[in-house]
């Protein structure tokens, strides 16, 4: 948990990461709010809010009285969303730092190719 963002959003991110990595496949049951609260040592209401964010975005669905499950196609939806924000989240900061160091976009591209081959 870091301090910069509301914890419930960080919980939502953690669950999304688990879906991306395949730890939580489609139709798998996600841990309960109380389990998340105990694991991350956070308030259960906060954990619940994080889970609800994903219900609202259609990543998780609720089976009444049983729990939360990963929707079919959740992984693709997360991938699409993350790819969309990738430039602003990762490329822009990288370019900013590169420009501070006097590295041009072309030089940066070469460096990326080189690192990618390792």
């Amino acid at each position: 948990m870091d301090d910069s963002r509301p914890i419930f959003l960080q919980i939502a991110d953690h669950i999304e990461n688990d879906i991306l990595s395949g730890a939580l496949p489609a139709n798998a049951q996600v841990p309960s709010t109380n389990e998340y609260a105990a694991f991350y040592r956070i308030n259960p209401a906060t954990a619940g809010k994080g889970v609800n964010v994903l219900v609202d975005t259609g990543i998780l669905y609720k089976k009444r009285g049983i729990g939360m499950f990963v929707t079919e196609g959740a992984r693709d939806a997360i991938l699409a969303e993350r790819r969309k924000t990738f430039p602003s989240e990762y490329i822009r900061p990288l370019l900013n730092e590169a420009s501070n160091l006097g590295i041009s976009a072309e030089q940066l591209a070469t460096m990326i190719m080189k690192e990618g081959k390792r």
Partner: protein
Amino acid sequence: MTAAIEVTDLTRRFGSTRAVDNVSFRIEDGTICGLLGRNGAGKTTLMQLLTGQDFATSGDIRVFGETPAENARVLQNVCFIKESQKYPDDFRVKHVMKSAPWFFQNWDADFAETLIDDFRLPLDRKVKKLSRGQLSSVGVIIGLASRAPLTFFDEPYLGLDAVARHLFYDRLLADYSLHPRTVVLSTHLIDEVSNLLEHVLVIDNGRIIIDDTADNLRGTTTTVVGKASAVDDFAHNRTVLHRERIGGISSVTLGALSPADKREAAAADLELSPVSLQQLIVQKTGSPASETEISA
């Protein structure tokens, strides 16, 4: 949501000192609320008023809809764990545990026993002979096992080691999940508890200066660091909560920034970093001189 506690225009004066100065707030039922503030800010006085152990100079207190003072209906649902609870001189730990169910109708003796094992508390030892940390764990155990609908912990872990503190957080969360209730936690270890809290009240000089959800407080302030001139330009027309300067570098704490603000800051080569709840409170309750200058 219903309120566990509702306070209106509450004042408690000791002579000319206003320990609690015209405060109003409410605490929702079933939440974990942090009551934070510096030494002498008025936290304990406030909790004594809320638990009927002290009388208000003026104002109104409702606990579960009723006045707590001399009201058995309210007080049997309230557990107040004080910083330094006094017990009869010849009391041993087992006597404390044995007498607890007389005061708390929801007392869970099995849970208390588990906690005694967890905290490695010697049952046969006299309470007077316990170490500071052990005495604190007695309070923690009573507070948890009493399962009172409204539980106050006033600086519950003086002398508790890190293991015991984390044990307390874990047991509190686990038991709170199973038996939801209202918990008011007063502490100086803000960083350690900030993730447990749903609501935060900060009291300073008897007044409530922050009354908000923990989620709202997180990310409402940002520290901006960079070249002094660039920082000054950026901070111009914005409310500055705190300002520090070292050599040509300046650091200011500002209110919430929009994504556009963040892009503007990034374009001006300014570094943004989050402010933790603890830093926020230190800055809000610190010395009034918000401008500290350190010459390089």
